[in-house]
């Protein structure tokens, strides 16, 4: 039985990068509000509110990213694919290999930069959502695809 593996270090890096992008977007929107609000209305927002908001969101998101990253576990052996994830609600998906109908890998622009992919495994099951491993490093994903292709 294969050992449960976590996601690679790149998966944590990409999560942090996403937090960075999110903070930048909030900062831009906040700056726009600070600059534009007094021009068009009688209201104004002090700069420190935006800075505090961005900082608080950044700290919480970074913490959450690392906690969420830590929860991911997966393994693929001769019989099944097992994926564990979730912080508040923990979910374990068990997929017998002979039930896998197809495997999809998705790569976004940011993921390409970090060399990670999202691997989604589909069964003919109609209720539960498809099982996905997010931000798995590309080498592992390729190995999973090749391994499943042999079944």
């Amino acid at each position, binding site marked *: 039985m294969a050992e449960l593996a976590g996601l690679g270090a790149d998966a944590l890096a990409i999560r942090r990068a996403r937090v960075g992008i999110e903070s930048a977007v909030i900062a831009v929107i906040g700056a726009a509000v600070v600059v534009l609000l007094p021009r068009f209305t009688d209201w104004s927002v002090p700069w420190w509110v935006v800075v505090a908001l961005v900082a608080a969101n950044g700290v919480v998101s970074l913490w959450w990213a690392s906690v969420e990253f830590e929860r991911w576990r997966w393994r693929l052996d001769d019989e099944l694919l097992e994926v564990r994830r979730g912080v508040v609600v923990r979910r374990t998906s068990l*997929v017998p290999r*002979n*039930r896998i109908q197809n495997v999809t890998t998705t790569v976004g622009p940011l993921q390409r930069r970090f060399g990670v992919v999202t691997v989604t495994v589909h069964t003919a099951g*109609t209720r539960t959502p498809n*099982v996905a491993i997010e931000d798995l490093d590309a080498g592992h994903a390729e190995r999973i695809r090749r391994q499943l292709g042999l079944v």
Partner: protein
Amino acid sequence: MTTPPVEEWRRLHPLTILKEIGALAWAIVAALVFDFDWDFQSPALPDGFDADSLIAIVVFGYAIIRYLSTAYRLTDQTLDLRRGVLFKSSQSMPRDRVQTVAVTTPLIGRLAGVSTVEISAADTEDITLAYVSSAHAERLRRILEARRHPADEGESEAEPEAARVPLADLPFHRLFLYTVTNGWLLLGVGTLIVGGVLALVFGFVLAPFAVAVALGGWSGAKALGLVEFRSWLQADRIQVEAGLLSRRETEAPLARIQAIGVSRPLIRRLVGQESVEMATGELSLGSDSLAITKGILAPLVEIGTWRRLAEQVIGSVDLGETDLRPSSPHTLRRTAVRGIMGTVVVTGLAVVPGIWLETNWWLPGVVALIGIVASVLYARARYRALGWAIDSRHLLVRGGVLNRRLAVVPIHKVQDVSLTETFFQRWLGIATVEVDTAGVAIPGSSLAAGIRAVDLTREDARGLADRLVAAAARVSLPDGV
């Protein structure tokens, strides 16, 4: 008669033109209502040619062209359909993928000898042929169904038909019992009682009664689709027939049945009756009548009959309700706490009318008291209802307080398994196991709620999940379903 390898393209029944005109009835109605007028004079046009005539010509013309441009044919591999006036489309369905073939004959259709044939297949869009002559509909169904028995393909029509083994029926007098024991009716009566109390206190009268009538009407409409319900086995297929105004006949190969569900809404349970349902791969829910009859194996039978029916349909079942193991007793705490949290919210809401009516806070107090007692009683009832059992061939799970549900799944039909632990479950050391099959359950049926073993101890849950997955991994299914 044998099936030729490739048949000619065939048109639908000419009555289809009327249906196409019917589909454009809004244009005719609009023409009559708005009474379009124009000042277009041309010597080329006959006198009295007006906008209404033009609309009529366009509608009739469109219907006829649409009829002429729609055709289907059977090849030895596929069922092909081409259609469309402006946008041409053609569809090809591999015959070995056909899951169910349903023939519906509306009341008028019965007089005119035409039927609608709906063919659904795994992974592709359904094909609906409306209308074809009833005789041809029957022939199509036989040919498409015969595909599953390659040995007698083509010869099947010459051979004597396999004997019918009846499963269940619903005589007219029991239809009434079915309707009054429906869960929706219970909800309707509940609404009526709550509405009556509210009417006494606040003076609103209409709204709850309207809701109650709507719910009662819904149960009535649902029952109409089940008039003269009959289900039977023929060869290795299950067939179901029902309906008053439009009679519907459905059949599905037994091998495609993914799970059997039993539902016992409160009143039905009290009179000792239950409903038995099934989930097959791919059920399309095109119209209401489909949703009602498809998936029902027996609308109303005595409690316990499910086992005989399940055995007839999916082979011998060794597990019974006496084999069910209880969930973890911690589920009592989880359910009660959930109920009490709900009570807190409702009590909060009750404070508002309390202030408004100046009732001196007795209203929230009463709500809180009722809520807490109800939560505790509900938790106990739920604990008694929950149960799970597994042997080498089947998984049996039970749940539901008001609507008691039971599901039997042949283990080899399991597609994947998930284990879920919410925050509170983790604290109590319990988990829920959900099993997924390729079966599509009818909304509102017992199987639609999911096949779940709720609040097992963490060890039991993991053991059950591992056992299910290992069993599924050992059996390969053709096409994976």
